[in-house]
């Protein structure tokens, strides 16, 4: 029954993106990322929390209609849900399946939690370097400390990802 419901949800989108396999409990943080893009208020976003998933036990799932994610958003999602998959839907069909990839260098997206870090002055853009993927651990390029991603806060609307 559960499985049927999940399938229905995915199929119900005409065009857009389904973010699947978000670890249970992180769906709302992913939602925060999606809402931080300024002009996206018109999007219809639906979220399923704590759904049963064979491989992951419990998972969250998010559907966004009429929009494909930007590189910036995908990278942010990789930070908090590195196991997530993206299903691109066109005309009710899954046309593409992607896994998110945590970039080696993440600029301006998250605050360094070290209060003695030079980037605690918020006019200075942060730069974090990937130390490990699972769990996600990042080194601040400035103060050189390593943090788990759970200890870090998103920068918010002004966050920019640069190659």
């Amino acid at each position, binding site marked *: 029954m559960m499985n049927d419901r999940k399938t229905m949800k995915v199929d119900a989108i005409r065009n857009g993106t389904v973010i699947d396999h978000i670890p249970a409990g992180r769906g709302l943080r992913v939602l925060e990322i999606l809402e931080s893009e300024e002009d996206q208020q018109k999007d219809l976003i639906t979220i399923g929390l704590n759904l049963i998933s064979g491989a992951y036990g419990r998972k969250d799932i998010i559907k966004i209609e009429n929009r494909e994610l930007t590189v910036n958003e995908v990278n942010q999602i990789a930070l908090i849900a590195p196991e997530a998959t993206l299903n691109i839907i066109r005309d009710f069909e899954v046309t593409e399946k992607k896994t998110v990839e945590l970039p080696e260098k993440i600029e301006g997206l998250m605050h360094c939690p070290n209060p003695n870090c030079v980037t*605690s002055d918020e006019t200075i853009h942060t730069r974090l370097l990937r130390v490990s993927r699972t769990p996600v651990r990042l080194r601040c390029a*400035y103060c050189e400390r390593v943090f788990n991603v759970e200890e870090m806060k998103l920068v918010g609307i002004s966050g920019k990802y640069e190659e």
Partner: protein
Amino acid sequence: MNHLISMRDLTKAEIQQFISTAAKIEKGELQPDLTGRVMGALFFEPSTRTHLSFETAMKRLGGEVISMSGTKGTSVEKGETLADTVKVINQYSDIIVIRHALEGAARYVSEQVTVPVVNAGDGANQHPTQSLLDLYSIYKTQNRLTGLTIALIGDLKYGRTVHSLVHALAHTQPKFYFISPPSLQMPRYIKDELREMKVDFEEGEHVEDVINQLDILYVTRIQRERFADPVDYERVKNAYVISRALLQNVKPNLKVLHPLPRVNEISTDVDQTKYAYYFQQAKNGVFMRQAILSILLGEI
């Protein structure tokens, strides 16, 4: 290499180049000429010893120095941003030396200016010129860097000097002993890194357990500010004193190093022994900083 910000950025070959250049300068085989060059020394946080060492190094090479020590009465106190301050000094100098209380300040500055930047200490993070002079001192006294048995004693938790030194030596197959009171142990993130790099280390509280096996004993000061209770401080302070009596059965090649200033952690009766090396270590600092300034200014 454009800047010297962190030991983490240096390759083994670059470290070797710094050491061999310092050695050649000390022996008089190399005499770089920095006449007409200006070093801007920006000590946002005052540090007499490091500041004077850099100034001596630049002057011995024929260069000039402009200095700021502390921020009292400066544009910084009026609210000028760090980026603006260094962009101005950029116009006056050929190389910038910076000491700042915020971690990462030197790297940030290196991204704001067009001249080479040397990190002279950024908060609890890095102090690479100290690490390089420590390496030079170890190399000079032991004729090698590899395979040494090294104990670090004192404040291993907040001591930026020991953090960068451990990092710098991690590639040289050392055997480390970390000797400290339980409240001032080496931070976990550093021990995790050492484990990942398969570096052999042990932690302990008593230097007498290991002293006779050591090639190098690196002593650091335990600061009163680190203790909430002054009684705890007094107890710890007196338990971590290196005295002449402790050195009775040590290896003949043992050298005792200390980044200075010391308070009482090495008793003065050690100064006359052949094991004391901390004053020569300070002198080595000038040769190493001469090497660093010359290399970064493209004169080597």
